[in-house]
Structures are given as C-alpha cells and as structure tokens.
C-alpha cells in the first residue's frame, strides 16, 4: 500500500464527509431550532439533483442547474413547511416521523410521475474536469476537490451566519427559548420557514453536486438520509460543530473501512473470502461506530445544552 493511495483514500473520505455535512447541517439546524425530525430531508436532496439535471439538460449549463437546485429545494422546503411541517412542531416525534415518512412516499412517486422512471443524465461542468496532481505522485479529480472546497465554505458560512448575524442571533434564541423570542416581536413563523428553507437548500445543493457524480434517480436520497442521521446523532443533535466533525468521522470511517478491512482479513484468509468478509464488516462499520459512541456518550459527542 503506497503513500499516494493512502492520501487519495483520505481525500475520498473527506469528500464523502463534506457531502454528508451539507445534509446533516440542515437536519441538525431544523432539529435544533424547531425540534423536528425530518425524514423527508432526503427527498429535498433528490429534488435538488433532479432540478439541476433538468435545467442543465435544457440549458446546457451545469451552473444554471446548480442555481436551480438551490432555488427548487428551498422552494420545496418552504412549501412543505407552510403546508405540513408547521402543524407538526407541537406534536411528538412519532407524528413527525409518520408525516415526514408520508412525504417521502409523495415526493418519490411525484418525482417519478413528472420525470419518468429512467435515471437522468447530469455531468460535471467542463471547468472542473480532469485531475490534479497530489504530493507524492498521485492524481485526484478536480471536481472532488471542488466539492471539498464548497463544503468547507458552507461550514464557514454557517459559522458566520449563526454566530455573527441578526438572523443567526434569532436562530440561537429560538433554540434556547421559543416563547421569549416570540415576545420580543420576532415573527417566529417566518423565522421557522426561513430556517427550513435554508436547510432544504443545503440538501438540494448536496443533491446537485452528488448528482453529477452518481446517478440522478428516484430514491437516491434515502441512503444519504440514514447516514446523515447517523452523523447528527454521533455529533450531538442540534450542534453544527458536531455535525461537521461527525460527518468527517463517518466519511473517513466508511471509506477507510472499505479500503483497509479486506486487506486486514487477507492476512488470515484466502483473497476471495477476505474480500467478502471485509466488505461485510465494512458495511456494518458505521453503525458499530455509532453504537459505540452512544454507549459511552448517550447524547453524542457535542450535545447541545438543551
């Protein structure tokens, strides 16, 4: 196993983690501010990818598609917040789970109705094709480096937004005391819609960026959704910092586990069996990690104070 290969795998883990962060940030924000479990967050990811693919196919520009994905996901988020989600804030988690589970069914079949059953085409923009040289002689796709950069930029942006702006102040106030900020004259309904749309837009952005790497198809959001939940639970629900660290931890564990475990098993087993055993354990690894962390820190690594 050479050094460039190892560096490449670490970058892969980082890129995967950053993508998870875009999903997890929205989820954890929505949970932290409104106390809502949103299973339909994966559907917003899918909406972003489909919007990007459709607009890119119509206009020939990935960048217009990217803008469309942000707009479409934010709009879809705002619409479901106003029609459905806002009736759920006062309900218990069970009702939220069922309602957003129903939203998944509606989004998935609705998307299939509009776009048909076959996967859509979406490619990376010409500007970001090709590979960059890594120290040590390796090569790494520019597009994936760009994804990492976008993820870091979003993390910084959120940090500034929440820590330094008026909206962020209201969001933080909303997290700690809902009645109080209502009393201060903040329109809490609008604030919630804004936060939900922001989370949705981040999911849509992730969907569009990932859509260019994989296939744009119905149901693409569900595996990501489960992983994003794992991330926010590991990180501590409601904590953006926890979501960031959780994402990177999960991304690295998943990627390096898939890569290293078969090699480890190969020390004691024949190659073909080792590959199978390693892959089996690798697919369970994230959940094992999560169970271990929760066994020792029942509220995640960076639990919010509430």
């Amino acid at each position, binding site marked *: 196993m050479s050094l460039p290969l190892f560096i490449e795998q670490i970058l892969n883990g980082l890129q995967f983690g950053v993508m998870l962060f875009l999903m997890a940030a929205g989820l954890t924000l929505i949970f932290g501010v409104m106390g809502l479990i949103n299973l339909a967050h994966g559907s917003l990811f899918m909406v972003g990818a489909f919007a990007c693919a459709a607009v890119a196919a119509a206009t020939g520009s990935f960048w217009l598609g990217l803008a469309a994905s942000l707009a479409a996901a934010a709009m879809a988020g705002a619409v479901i917040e106003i029609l459905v989600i806002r009736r759920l804030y006062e309900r218990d988690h069970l009702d939220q789970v069922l309602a957003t589970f129903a*939203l998944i069914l509606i989004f998935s079949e609705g998307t299939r109705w509009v776009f048909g059953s076959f996967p859509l085409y979406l490619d990376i923009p010409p500007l970001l094709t090709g590979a960059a040289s890594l120290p040590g002689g390796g090569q790494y796709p520019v597009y994936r480096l760009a994804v990492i950069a976008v993820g870091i930029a979003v993390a910084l942006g959120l940090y500034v937004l929440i820590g330094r702006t008026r909206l962020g102040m209201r969001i933080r106030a909303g997290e700690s005391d809902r009645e109080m900020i209502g009393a201060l004259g903040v329109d809490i309904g609008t604030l919630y819609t804004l936060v939900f749309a922001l989370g949705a837009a981040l999911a849509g952005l992730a969907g569009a960026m990932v859509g260019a790497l994989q296939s744009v198809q119905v149901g693409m959001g569900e595996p990501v959704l489960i992983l994003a939940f794992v991330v926010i639970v590991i990180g501590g629900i409601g904590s953006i910092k926890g979501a960031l660290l959780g994402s990177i931890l999960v991304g690295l564990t998943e990627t390096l586990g898939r890569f290293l475990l078969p090699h480890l098993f190969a020390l004691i087993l024949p190659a073909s069996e080792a590959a199978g055993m390693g892959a089996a354990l690798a697919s369970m690894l994230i959940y094992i990690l999560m169970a271990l962390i*929760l066994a020792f820190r029942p509220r995640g690594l960076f639990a919010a104070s509430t």
Partner: protein
Amino acid sequence: MNRETLVNALLILGLLAAPFAADAMGEPFYVTLATRIAILALAATGLNIALGLGGLVSFGHAAFFGIGGYAAGILATHAFNAEPLLFGLPGTNQMVSIWLAAVAAAGMAALLIGLISLRTSGVYFIMITLAFAQMIYYFAISWPAYGGEDGLSIYVRNAFPGTNTMRPMSFFLIAAGLLLAGLAFFALLRNSRFGAALQAGRQNEIRLAAVGIAPFRIRLVAFVLSAMMTGVAGALFADLNRFVSPSMLSWHMSGELIVLIILGGVGRLAGPLAGAIVYVLFEFALGGVTEHWQLFLGLVLLCVVLFARGGVVGLLAGRARHG
C-alpha cells in the same frame, strides 16, 4: 372507555368473520390477506408494548421481526435437508418449537440491544435502535450461508398438530389465535403493576425514581417482551410467505411497524390491528388501481397525522387515551 371496548370488539370480530365470508364465497385470497393483517398486527402489538406503553420509540423493530423470520427459515431448512444445526441439534418443522426459538432469539437480541440503547433517550434512542437493525440487515445481506440478499425459501409451510397449514383458513386461524393471545397479553400487561410503572416512566421519570423504581430495568424488560412478540410474528410472516429475506430486516419494515401503530392509535389495545387493516387494505386496493399508488398512500398517511389525531381508533372511539 366503553366506546373503545366496543370498537375493539368490532375490529376483532370483523377480522375473524371476514375470512369465513371470503372462504364461503370461494375467494381464498382474502383469507391470505386477513392472515397478513393478523400477523402484521401481532408484530405491531409487540412494538406497542415498548412504544405505546413505555414511550420507547424503537426504529429498529424490523430486527426482531426478521430474526423471528430467520429462526423459522433456518430451522425449517435444516429440517428439510435433515442437516443438524450447531452443536448437533436438529432442525424442526413444528411451528410451536419454531415460535419458541423465535422468542428466544429475538429476546436475546433485544436484551443485548436494550442494554446499550436504553442508556440513551429521545431521538438518540430512535437512531441507535435503527443503527443496530441496520447492522443486522447488512450482516444478513452479506452472510452467504442462508441465501444472503436472495433470502431463504421454505418449500413446505411448517406443521401445526392436527391441521393442514397449507390450507389458507387453517393458517389464518393459527395466526388469529396468536394475535388474540398477543392482545390479551398486552391488555394484562397494561393493567398490571408492571404496566403501571412502565407507563408512569413514560410520563414522569423522576416521580418513578422517587418511589424507588429503577426505570432502566422496567424498560429493559418491556423492550425484551416487545421484541419477543414481534419475533413470533416474524416467524409467522416467514411461514405465510414461505420465504424470508433481509428485506424483513430493512428500515422500511421498522418504519412500517411504527406507521401501523400511529395509524391505528398509539398505546391503544386495538390500535395496531386497526392500523394493519387500514394499511394492508389500502396497499392492496391502490396497488391494483395505479402504478403511482405510493403517492396516494402517502397522502392518506399525511391526512391521518394532520387531521385524525389518535389514529383510526381515536377517530372511532373518541380522544380520551387511558394509561
């Protein structure tokens, strides 16, 4: 209270009567459909012990459902091929032995999962139970000995003394009998001192601790009992389909069990039964009408959450929820 008892009685009688009517009209498929309802209702009644009485929202009960199913599949396969299991124990095709094995296996798994998971609460509990179920799911997919993702076929439905289980009506009666036993167990548990403590723990943990009861142990026992009942239902489900596969362990299955309970009414005796009736009938009726049936199923579920709080039973019997 009285009205709810009436609703419960009507639901149970309806489930029992419908297959006889269908059988008389020469429509054996509806007997199969009723059997499916009874089995899913039993699985959800099991979950209702943890979720409805204890407030423990387990998003991983598919694990116990699937473990029960695999217990049936594995024992039946070994009996069919006349191969011994571990430690030279033989397989079996007797339903009663299989149920005991399913109860034991699901209970053991729940004990281990519960010991770790019950240290957490709220959303963390939802997610850690999901994590354990996902572990078992991926294990089942990649474990080649019993078919992996292709699953395991049971060529002949397992046997029950004195009856031919391949007859839809006989198998329905077995499933319905177990469902009634499960409902009776749920009712007894709810009204017992244990049940009172469990429900008190859901509402106010501190008060419970103040009277010297440790909520952890009560919840662990409830979680294990809950898993055992869901495990038996899993074994029946495998016999119904004559097939078991990892999809019984998937998170969609866990979600479906929760949906059944909320649809019917959380913590209510006949809630899971009402939920199973509505869900299975909708799935069946819509599936034949349009290929976009899942969209309409979603709309129906959404309307139930938004406008029919307390589920179907709540709608029929009024709001008051006891316990």
